[in-house]
């Protein structure tokens, strides 16, 4: 029996070229550029100075508010530059060792905070805040997001196959953290039958952890869609999953929790799918945080002249970047290199309604695009624009080639700024 969200969605080509290959560790770069703003909330503040020697795993920046995160060095070296919200560290030695976290006597939230763990699904919400909701006794369900519905990406898939035992142990640790003994549902799309079968075997004797096979459809991995598909509950407007008793966590985040609790390892490297049509062998690599795109291009033997578009994340919701001297963040789980780019000429809306058909949240995207072009914030709010998760199904399907999501992002940005100014 396949779970799925009740309406809409699209099915782009899976393109999971890296799904059958094992994860490989990328060679340590000669320097890293670690951003201080890799998470939702206030940017972290540097606590090292230029010239300082730092060891792998050492804290180099502290959180500046409740919703913020620690940042650790991903290599052993010397701080050579601090500016514009990033810290540059030059490597001085290769080292497998790292500064271990001091977790004696600490509870899971404190450990997760010290390890600098943020949501590895891409948004980067500090996990210690997520697992400490206001009323933890109301949490009755935890959903582990193993959907990985974006084309090309397969890092979560490989983690579930290669580190299955660690994955399950971490799930149990998170489950125990909640006194209310929540049931755990692991959502995995049906195009990952090997992961589903392996986990089902390992969880055969567990009653409180179940694997939920999901229909392969985008955006199956959206948290609102997952909650609706598996639990048949809807997250109300302006509310978060914990308000209805649910916590949703990404597979990569769960693995980071295992490393923090069992290996006392802070989050300083990330498993990334390197794919696209510019690379001969698409694969998943473990990459130190702050590794530059230039280094990755060189190490993965990508012809730089062939590249026309670089996307961080998946092709549906990822962001394209042009500066290859930037270092990657701990939330990065995919980098796609494409040789072609689409330059679309927007035409007028033909009112076909396809965008409304594919919207899994029941919104009418074409209205938002029209409101955005004249900056009509009131009507957009009345039509629940803030519920939009910017999944991209509407832009994908629009026959008039209107960049609907970009118009929506613009209007949401204006609305947020107006609210901030108003305060």
């Amino acid at each position, binding site marked *: 029996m396949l779970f799925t969200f009740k309406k809409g969605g699209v099915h782009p080509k899976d393109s999971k070229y890296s799904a059958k290959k094992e994860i490989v560790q990328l060679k340590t770069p000669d320097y890293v550029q670690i951003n201080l703003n890799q998470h939702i909330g206030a940017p972290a503040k540097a606590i090292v100075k230029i010239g300082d020697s730092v060891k792998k795993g050492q804290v180099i920046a502290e959180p500046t508010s409740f919703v913020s995160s620690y940042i650790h060095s991903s290599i052993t070296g010397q701080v050579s530059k601090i500016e514009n919200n990033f810290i540059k560290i030059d490597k001085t030695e290769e080292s497998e060792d790292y500064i271990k976290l001091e977790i004696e006597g600490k509870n899971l939230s404190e450990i997760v905070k010290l390890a600098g763990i943020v949501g590895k699904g891409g948004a980067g919400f500090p996990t210690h805040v997520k697992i400490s909701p206001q009323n933890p006794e109301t949490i009755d369900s935890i959903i582990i997001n193993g959907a990985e519905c974006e084309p090309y990406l397969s890092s979560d898939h490989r983690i579930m196959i290669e580190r299955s035992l660690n994955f399950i142990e971490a799930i149990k640790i998170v489950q125990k953290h909640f006194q209310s003994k929540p049931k755990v549902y692991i959502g995995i799309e049906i195009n990952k039958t090997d992961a589903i079968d392996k986990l089902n075997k390992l969880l055969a004797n567990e009653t409180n952890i179940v694997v939920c096979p999901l229909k392969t459809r985008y955006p199956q991995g959206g948290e609102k869609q997952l909650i609706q598909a598996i639990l048949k509950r809807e997250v109300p407007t302006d509310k978060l999953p914990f308000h209805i008793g649910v916590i949703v966590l990404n597979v990569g985040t769960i693995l980071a929790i295992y490393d923090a609790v069992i290996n006392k390892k802070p989050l300083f490297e990330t498993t990334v799918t390197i794919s696209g049509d510019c690379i001969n062998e698409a694969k998943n690599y473990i990459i130190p945080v702050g590794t530059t795109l230039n280094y990755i291009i060189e190490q993965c033997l990508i012809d730089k002249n062939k590249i026309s578009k670089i996307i961080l994340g998946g092709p549906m919701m990822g962001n394209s*970047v*042009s500066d290859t001297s930037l270092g990657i963040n701990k939330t990065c789980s995919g980098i796609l290199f494409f040789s072609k780019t689409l330059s679309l000429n*927007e035409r007028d809306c033909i009112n076909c309604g396809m965008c409304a058909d594919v919207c899994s949240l029941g919104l009418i995207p074409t209205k938002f695009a029209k409101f955005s072009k004249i900056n009509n914030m009131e009507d957009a709010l009345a039509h629940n624009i803030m519920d939009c998760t910017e999944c991209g199904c509407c832009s994908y399907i629009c026959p008039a080639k209107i960049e609907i999501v970009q118009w929506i992002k613009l209007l949401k940005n204006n609305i947020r700024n107006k609210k901030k100014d108003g305060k």
Partner: protein
Amino acid sequence: MFTTILPAIIVLVLLSLLSALILSYANKKFKVELDPRVSEILKKLPGANCGGCGYAGCSAFAESSVNGVEGVCPVTDEKTKALIAKILGKDCSSKEKTQARVYCSGATNIAKDNKAYDGIKDCVSAKAFGGSSKACAYACYGFGTCVKICPFYAITIENGLAVINKNKCTGCGLCVDVCPQHLIRLTDIKKPVFIPCSTQNKAVISKKNCDASCIACMKCVKECPSQAISIINSHAVIDYTKCTDCKKCISVCPVKIIREV
């Protein structure tokens, strides 16, 4: 036949007389006292509802003026301003008339590109998501968000750069607020000399990014007899409280970035 219709006619006539009485009573009892000055002032105002005065429209401005709140319609000329002041029985203090100017000269091919921009043609959107194709991070994006907001059709995009028509600009200030690069500023029309460059990069980088760039060589700073020019954030800026419009700076600038509007 007449006798059958007569009662109907009488009833209707009585009903209409009754309505007339009620309406004339209501007209007197519920009359809204409108200050006649409001409509007089409204007639003198341009009626564009541009918001340059800070109010939602011309009638809102007229009403607040009659209520004694000091204000100015930046769009009207001096003669009209004086007439409005006369209606209010007040003095009109003169303020220098300003117009909007674009402090960037980075047209296509002058400001070099270092990437391709595929997104929607909107400046605010481009700013939020990484900038335009131009290498200079401080350049005009040229997508025309300012064009859309100008109620007087005074702005056009020419070769990827916003250009303001000084014969149409009324100084209402809407474009100033909307430009996400903060490149548009209101300047006194009596001071035509200006330096249309807002780079914050050092000259070495800025020159690579744009042929028109100010290089902060300080020749203008030294030449100005009133010390009106200084280098702020790597580009030259004129202090209009000191500028006497002598135009000496224009002749010494080696990159010809000091212009007249």
